[in-house]
């Protein structure tokens, strides 16, 4: 039984005939980590936002279903949907520098949800938050809880955001390029941290990235996106053994090997791009004739 | 999104036209006051004191908007009042603009001690309550149209100077200015040919707004009985009188108030409309 399932999800910019998501289907079993890869603008973040109900105002869903824990989210009232997502999902954002409210201390930013949405006692929430901060290897949790975001480094803030995401024991986490904004050495620590935490808490993660190297380290499965369309859905081992779709193959070839950083990059060849473009056009035409 | 923006555009257009229409009307009234006004605005008739406007029972035929306590025709005074209001708006507005924008340009472009001195003056001016300052000036200079205009210029030049100074600073830092200087042009010449045209839209917008403000200041000064010798027809003077007799003759207050309200609103909407349309900086 899948924890999250997208069935033919389509989205476009409000009142414009410009699809952003083209019938996206993917599933996430409990405890599974699914990578979502593709070039910039492919619609990776859009999928994460659709799941969490935070699509930009200008974007509307035009079709498909989002099932969370056996329930079709779109059938719920806005309020219930928000609460369900708040109770069982969490987001690890891309940029830790902007994801914490600069005028509030850290403590309430972690504990608010536990108290307001999950109905915990304030004291229990604080203890829990400190535990979690400890778990993400923050030295002095009590001090950090009292700090303002600007007093902390980027790496620290991302740890806090990870702690905050796991604090409510969500069943699903959307991690939207959680390491891109950090410098390389910190990136590795944070990745490892996410992986450890995931293993310990058994959380399913939708992991958005454009780095196949990262995918190979943390994910069980992956979906390759192009132009808002899933071109390949595969498990990690068979994907890295041999991608099925030509675009995925080119993408993999374009990724520098961790084992061989000196290898030259081969860009995705034009012929491959032309190929996927053709698929997209064919898809749009089929849609138009329905 | 696009629809909303279109709506705003259209509203802005309507706003501009309505404002221009009203101001045109006021201008015509001011220009042709002797031809349009049904009565002499100064003629008193104590037997016709506080006659109500035409639709109210007891109105005196020929006095469309009623009369004030001295029996003067409200409509005629309103029309003649437009003359003073517009004169003040145009002359004081333009003079304030020239002085304020000139100083602002110099401060912003020349920097250095010029800027220091002008900025210090702006600071001092900002610490004055403007209405009190203008009243003070009038009390000192004595009432009269010229005094009012001078007072407005003296209290309001900072409004231009502050904005234009900031803009000139921004413009002065741009490449094309540097290249003009490199090409061997003098400072003043660069200021007038390179900077001035670029801040001109802002100046026009500020000028429009300033005219509205000038009208209000004139009204305020007339209201406290300091502007023009009292029997001359000014909207502020009429309002002042209307305020006193508000329970007996509301029309003496209401009509000049409406005229003043619409004129001030029109100037400011015109300014805002122009700003939205032409000035990317102020927007």
């Amino acid at each position, binding site marked *: 039984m899948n924890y999250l399932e997208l069935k033919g999800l389509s989205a476009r910019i409000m009142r414009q005939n410009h699809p952003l998501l083209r019938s996206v289907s993917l599933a996430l079993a409990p405890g599974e980590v699914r990578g979502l890869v593709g070039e910039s603008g492919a619609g990776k973040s859009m999928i994460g936002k659709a799941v969490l109900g935070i699509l930009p105002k200008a974007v509307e869903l035009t079709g498909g279903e989002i099932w969370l824990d056996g329930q079709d989210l779109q059938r719920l009232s806005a309020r219930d949907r928000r609460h369900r997502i708040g109770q069982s999902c969490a987001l690890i954002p891309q940029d830790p520098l902007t994801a914490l409210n*600069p005028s509030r201390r850290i403590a309430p930013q972690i504990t608010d949800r536990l108290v307001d949405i999950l109905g915990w006692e304030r004291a229990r929430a604080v203890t829990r938050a400190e535990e979690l901060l400890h778990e993400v290897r923050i030295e002095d949790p009590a001090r950090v809880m009292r700090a303002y975001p600007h007093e902390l480094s980027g790496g620290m803030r991302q740890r806090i955001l990870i702690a905050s995401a796991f604090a409510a024991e969500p069943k699903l986490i959307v991690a939207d390029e959680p390491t891109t904004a950090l410098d390389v050495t910190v990136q590795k620590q944070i990745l490892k941290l996410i992986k450890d935490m995931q293993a310990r808490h058994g959380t399913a993660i939708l992991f958005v990235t454009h780095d196949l190297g990262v995918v190979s380290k943390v994910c069980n499965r992956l979906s390759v996106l192009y132009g808002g369309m899933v071109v390949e859905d595969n498990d990690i081992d068979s994907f890295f053994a041999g991608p099925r779709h030509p675009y995925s193959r080119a993408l993999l070839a374009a990724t520098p090997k961790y084992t061989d950083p000196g290898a030259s990059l081969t860009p995705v060849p034009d012929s491959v791009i032309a190929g996927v473009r053709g698929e997209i056009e064919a898809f749009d035409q089929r849609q138009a004739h329905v | 999104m696009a629809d909303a923006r279109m709506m705003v555009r259209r509203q802005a257009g309507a706003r501009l036209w309505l404002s221009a229409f009203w101001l045109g009307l006021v201008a015509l009234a001011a220009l042709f006051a002797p031809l349009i006004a049904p009565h002499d605005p100064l003629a008193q008739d104590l037997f016709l004191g506080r006659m109500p406007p035409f639709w109210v029972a007891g109105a005196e035929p020929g006095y469309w908007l009623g009369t004030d306590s001295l029996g003067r025709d409200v409509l005629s005074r309103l029309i003649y009042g437009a003359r003073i209001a517009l004169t003040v708006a145009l002359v004081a507005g333009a003079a304030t603009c020239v002085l304020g924008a000139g100083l602002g340009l110099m401060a912003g472009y020349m920097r250095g001690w010029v800027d220091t001195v002008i900025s210090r003056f702006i600071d001092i001016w900002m610490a004055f*309550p403007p209405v009190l300052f203008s009243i*003070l000036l009038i009390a000192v200079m004595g009432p009269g149209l010229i005094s009012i205009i001078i007072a407005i210029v003296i209290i309001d030049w900072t409004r231009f100077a502050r904005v234009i100074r900031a803009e000139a600073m921004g413009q002065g830092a741009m490449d094309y200015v540097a290249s003009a200087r490199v090409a061997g042009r003098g400072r003043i010449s660069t200021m007038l040919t390179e900077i001035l045209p670029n801040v001109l839209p802002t100046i026009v917008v500020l000028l429009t707004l300033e005219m509205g403000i000038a009208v209000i200041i004139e009204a305020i000064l007339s209201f406290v009985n300091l502007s023009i010798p009292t029997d001359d027809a000014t909207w502020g003077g009429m309002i002042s009188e209307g305020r006193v007799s508000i329970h007996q003759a509301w029309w003496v207050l209401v009509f000049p*108030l409406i005229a003043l309200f619409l004129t001030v609103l029109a100037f400011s909407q015109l300014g*805002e409309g122009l700003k939205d349309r032409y000035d990317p900086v102020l927007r």
Partner: protein
Amino acid sequence: MGRLLTTLITLLGVAVVVFVVIRVVPGNPIAMMLPPGATEADIARLNALYGFDKSIPQQFFIWLGGVVQGDFGTSITARQPVTGMVLGRLPATLELSVMALVMACVMGGAMALWGTRRRETKTEAAIDVANGMALSVPDFLWGLLLILGFGVLWPVFHISGRVTPSLELPFTTNFYLFESLIRLRFDLWADIVSHMFLPALALAIPLSAIIGQLLKQSLKETMHLDYVTLARTRGYGETHVILREALRNAILPTLTLVGVQFTFLIGGTVIIERLFSYEGLGNMAIEAVTNRDLPLIQGIVILFALIFTGVNLVVDLLYAVLNPRLRHG
């Protein structure tokens, strides 16, 4: 420290400007005070009494020397110390200004929150139009409209004075509004509020529009930020997100502007007090100007300048307190 120094220079500049403006221009205040039959000797005697026989710089330094000791001279018309007269009226003006400020913040804040809640809808467009109107029309005109509306057509508020004259006032200070509350005299309090409401509203309307516009704009910008989005994923609704996550950060840019605008509001009390015959500093100032009461005028203008610069200092402090980055940086 540098701030304090520039403030002092500004105040000194104000003093010089007022001093010069009043004295350079012809027109003898003493002559106006005397009965028609007064002799040259009488004039000279009075001139000497008020120090008008000395040169302008001399007069200035004598006056400045007094000011430093809190002595602003003697009013020509009332023949009383200016300091006492001015301080006696100050509470009335302060209460009016603060009341107006509070009203402006409440109205502007409500507009901003409501407009943000309903952003990109017709409601927001309507709020924008209303704000635009409120902004275009100055306090003087709002005052007149309010007098017409709520004083005459539908007379629910008082339109002149500060308190009904026939009432017995048990007050020891001139902070009537405040003291009536402290003494639990709600009957008096209601009467005072009913007098103050319209003038305060007239002052508040333009400022509320500015606050509404600016706060809404910065709220809307804040609503796109990551931490706001994150709060949404945590199950919070729009209203909650606006109030708890966005508001505090959005308020900071508004605050600085409100400071400057508040000084404009205080400047506006001069004419509004006149309009509503409210016995504050502004009304006194206009009387002083009409009577050419030089020492009184100087005192009042300096006091206004003090208030203006004081407000600006307070705003800077408040900004530092509200902005954690400055507080701990």
